[in-house]
């Protein structure tokens, strides 16, 4: 699967990561709903960590669409309230 971190580009990840990301995404939505910023930050950094450890940067020559677009790394908690709502970034 192709994941984009907004502002940083696209990464190719094993499809198996989709489930892990989705789970973190759902928990992040719950954290945001509860106004738990510390919890959200922890989950968000775990999501970024998956991309960092498993992802390979998509080359600049490739024109492909992303399956998942993650918001900018330095997303504020306020912005997160818009992003991590409902189904979250990854629809179930």
């Amino acid at each position: 699967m192709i994941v984009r971190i907004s502002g940083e580009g696209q990464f190719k990840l094993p499809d198996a990561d989709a489930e892990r990301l989705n789970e973190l995404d759902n928990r992040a939505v719950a954290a945001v709903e509860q106004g738990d910023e510390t919890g959200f930050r922890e989950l968000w950094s775990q999501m970024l960590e998956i991309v960092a450890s498993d992802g390979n940067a998509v080359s600049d020559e490739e024109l492909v669409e992303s399956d998942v677009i993650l918001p900018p790394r330095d997303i504020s908690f306020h912005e997160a309230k818009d992003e991590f709502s409902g189904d979250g970034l990854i629809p179930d």
Partner: protein
Amino acid sequence: MPGLAGRMSTVVKAKISRMLDRAEDPGETLDYGYQKQVELLQNVKKGIADVVTSKKRLQMQSQKLEQQVVKLDTQARQALSQGREDLARTALERKTLAQTELQSLDQQVKELEQQQEQLTANEQRLRQKIEQFRTKKEVIKAQYSAAEAQVRISEAANGVGEEMADLGLAMQRAEDKTENMRARASAVEELEKAGAFDDITALGSGQDDLDRQLSELTSGVQVDDELAKMKAELGPGGGESPALEQGEEKA
């Protein structure tokens, strides 16, 4: 749907696919799409230039303030050695305020530097993708009769569209940030104009009100501590030190 960035790119994608669907001549649409991409690239350059301008302005302010801090510190010492604790206190209050502003300016310069680096990297990536799109579009135009062509156009266009939308978002965020910093720079300029960082040799009549405001702005404790430290450094009987730099004794 993917998040904020996703929603933005969806809008762009939708526009591009609509364009492609309606197009009688896909070749023309591809050229138009390419032209739009190149235009965006120009905007990105302007955006980066804006960030650089704001950064330079803050850096200049920061250098000015640094000089004032050194000057005010020297003057505080000189005033104290002449037994003018009141003047020394005024100078230290101004120095404290200048230092506080300086810290915040330096932090913002750092942030702008990061913004600039990120935007530049993004711009280079988009430039590559657009170049790739240009090559691809010529291939697609030449082989348009092939059954796959339509699919390939969408793929390529959507790929670039997503990249463009993402860069648009990065630019928007950079712009918001620079906007905040411009406001900050103006606020520092206002303080400067009001004479808040003037050295104490420039003190004339009518400064009483400003000084009152300054002592409210700056932390009294910090000024007291520094004053005490300076006194200790100078030791007793510092009355033989040279006269206040450029200044006259206030009657």
